[in-house]
């Protein structure tokens, strides 16, 4: 293995050479019947936050099947095998939660990868790590990538407060997805 190959494989930004497309995938307008992938990065409360958001989207916007996926490590972008599986199986992706430096950057990097693959995606970070997420978007050549920022913290909250974070996230997620139609 050459040095350059090793560096490419270990690049924690996930920035592939030539990956500079800053164009969003086509927005769905309606979520009715769409298969939604929930990508959990294993940070505490990620699963609960994603489930709360999906429940709202099911009840109020008529999403179809909900599929759950789990990354094996929160600090780096998603591995290609799981990425390809998700792209093949869902219509939109919601991924959470970036509530640390590396995981907020990785959550945004994941979102950009899905957008470039044509999958509308909502990446969720906490507001304390907005700079990390935005910097990753810049490094990825997608400075206009928008992501949801919920109030920090997330990991230490009980279920009632996670419900509150979901309430913050849903309107922003709908805006980012371009959804205007209620089921």
């Amino acid at each position: 293995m050459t040095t350059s190959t090793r560096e490419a494989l270990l690049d924690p930004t996930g920035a592939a050479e030539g990956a500079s497309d800053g164009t969003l995938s086509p927005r769905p307008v309606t979520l009715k019947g769409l298969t939604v992938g929930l990508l959990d990065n294993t940070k505490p409360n990620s699963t609960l936050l994603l489930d709360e958001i999906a429940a709202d989207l099911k009840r109020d916007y008529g999403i179809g099947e909900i599929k759950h996926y789990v990354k094996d490590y929160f600090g780096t972008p998603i591995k290609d095998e799981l990425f390809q599986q998700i792209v093949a199986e869902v219509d939109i992706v919601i991924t959470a939660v970036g509530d640390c430096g590396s995981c907020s950057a990785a959550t945004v990097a994941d979102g950009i990868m899905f957008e470039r693959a044509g999958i509308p995606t909502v990446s969720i970070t906490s507001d304390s790590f907005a700079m990390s997420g935005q910097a990753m978007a810049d490094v990825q050549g997608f400075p206009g990538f928008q992501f949801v920022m919920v109030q920090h913290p997330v990991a230490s909250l009980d279920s009632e407060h996670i419900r509150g974070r979901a309430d913050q996230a849903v309107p922003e997620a709908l805006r980012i997805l371009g959804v205007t139609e209620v089921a």
Partner: protein
Amino acid sequence: MSETTSVDDALASFREMMAADGYLLTWDPAGEDKVVVRIAATDGACEDCLVPLPVMTNIMAKALAPTAYELDHVELPPGATH
């Protein structure tokens, strides 16, 4: 406002962000118009949470843009894997 205060102000919000993961941010002049930003781990630092170096460099360079200084480079804690 002194130049030192200006750099401190420019890096203040990122210093807070790093502190949330248990890291301490300091900086030193490097020549007349550049600064070196150093990240040190505290006892409670989350090793896996450290922002990747290219991302951190991007943040610092932007943060310093309104000041009279440019980023020379960022130094991560010894042994940092990012």
